């Protein structure tokens, strides 16, 4: 896979717990353009984390990402906060997107909480450039309103909230009163996104108008152990509780492509020949999950005590 070798040009710790990195090629050359809403996957020591790009998306010479420190995460954000300094090199995969603006939309309603504002920033830049109609509702903690100044320069239609109750009240009115043709974009913590989607669905929003950018799954339980048989080799082994199927396959020498390891990116999909699957990812569609012949090995497990994989 193509990777980008980038240099840290600037570090901004202006907001508590949030570090903003400016990255560029060592020679300052042009970087790949990207679709608004894209993220950059940065290799952070042992893990690879996805961060939304907040900089200009057209023929950029810099990539900017803002990273919230997650003390209980896999370590990637801690590494960025505590190890990385100006002048250091990082390796990143080119921007990828599953959260692009729907260009036919009559209006774009952006709803963000906390660091979930980051993918909205490139949406707003693009909307500003092309004159698309946007509305933004932004819930953040007091003193943590990252990007507010930049956003004010791009739109007059931002509402910010530091109180959840007021926010929910305004969100309900906004969802109830959008002209037909509006599309909704949501990013924030999992619970916030679920609540927003439930509210929207209750007000008649169909799935095709709702677009989500997920950070990943909140901590999953370690799961029950189960036995795995590989169809091709007949190899049989047990995946212990607390160990992912992906890790178990790697330990036995199977090279399964993977990236986010949290059920979002879709890289580690493997074919299943038998057994019931406990799907825990956010990538497969409901139809994929119902078909039962494929699974995301990083987070999903067996429903019963065994699985047969077509590997």
């Amino acid at each position, binding site marked *: 896979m193509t990777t980008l070798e980038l240099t840290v040009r600037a570090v901004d710790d202006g907001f508590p717990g949030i570090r903003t990195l400016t990255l560029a090629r060592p020679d300052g050359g042009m970087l790949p353009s990207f679709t608004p809403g894209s993220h950059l996957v940065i290799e952070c020591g042992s893990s690879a984390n996805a961060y939304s790009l907040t900089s200009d998306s057209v023929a950029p010479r810099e990539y900017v990402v803002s990273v919230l420190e997650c003390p209980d995460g896999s370590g990637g954000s801690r590494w960025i906060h505590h190890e990385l300094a100006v002048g250091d090199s990082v390796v990143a995969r080119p921007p990828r997107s599953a959260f692009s603006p729907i260009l036919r939309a009559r209006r774009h309603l952006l709803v963000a909480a906390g660091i979930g504002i980051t993918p909205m920033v490139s949406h707003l830049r693009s909307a500003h450039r092309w004159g698309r109609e946007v509305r933004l509702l932004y819930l953040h903690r007091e003193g943590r309103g990252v990007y507010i100044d930049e956003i004010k320069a791009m739109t007059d239609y931002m509402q910010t909230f530091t109180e959840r109750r007021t926010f929910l009240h305004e969100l309900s009115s906004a969802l109830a009163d959008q*002209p037909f043709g509006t599309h909704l974009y949501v990013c924030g913590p999992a619970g916030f996104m679920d609540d927003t989607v439930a509210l929207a669905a209750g007000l008649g929003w*169909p*799935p095709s108008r709702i677009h989500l950018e997920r950070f990943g799954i909140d901590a999953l339980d370690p799961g029950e152990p189960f036995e795995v048989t590989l169809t091709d080799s007949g190899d049989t082994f047990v995946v212990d509780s607390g160990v992912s199927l992906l890790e178990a396959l790697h330990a036995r020498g199977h090279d399964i492509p993977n990236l986010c390891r949290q059920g979002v990116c879709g890289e580690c999909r493997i074919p299943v020949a038998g057994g019931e699957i406990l799907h825990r990812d956010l990538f497969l569609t409901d139809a994929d999950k119902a078909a039962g012949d494929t699974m995301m090995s990083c987070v999903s497990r067996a429903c019963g005590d065994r699985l047969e994989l077509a590997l």
Partner: protein
Amino acid sequence: MKPDLETTSVPAWAAATSQPDADLSGRAWTVVGFGDDAEPIVSAWRTQILGHNAHAAVVVHRVDDDEAAAQAVDADLAGALVGWRLMIAGPADACLRLRAHALRIGVGDDEIVVGSTAVGTRDVLCAHCQARTRAEVGIEDVLPCAGCGRNLLVYYHVSRLKGAYLGFMVDAELVGAP
């Protein structure tokens, strides 16, 4: 050999008549019925929606042609909010044409429900002269194009935005054909 129509662009309701339930996930509904035969479906939907919410905003239009149907949809949509649903009942060919109109102005597939009262009539678009021929014809049958006279095979493909089947010259490679 006909493929499983589920894997094609031909909607199930255009292959066999259907009376689906009303879509109760919306907040406002426009119901369009083509002709008297659509009446049972229209009234069943109305009952379902009002049974779900007695104060629901349901507007019913009983129409006889494409133009009236499109005008009704346009008028309702002008002031509509997200949450609006379009429910169409009538012969499949008219439903396909009104669905095409709705899709062209930005209505989503998951905002449209169709109940069909008849499926025998089909619009066939000639791949060669673009003329539209309407006739009682089955998929894989052959009919003469009303525009250029070519013998068109009615293919199992529906243009979503034109609301018609694809027809192409069935004997184009026949040596000695006129």
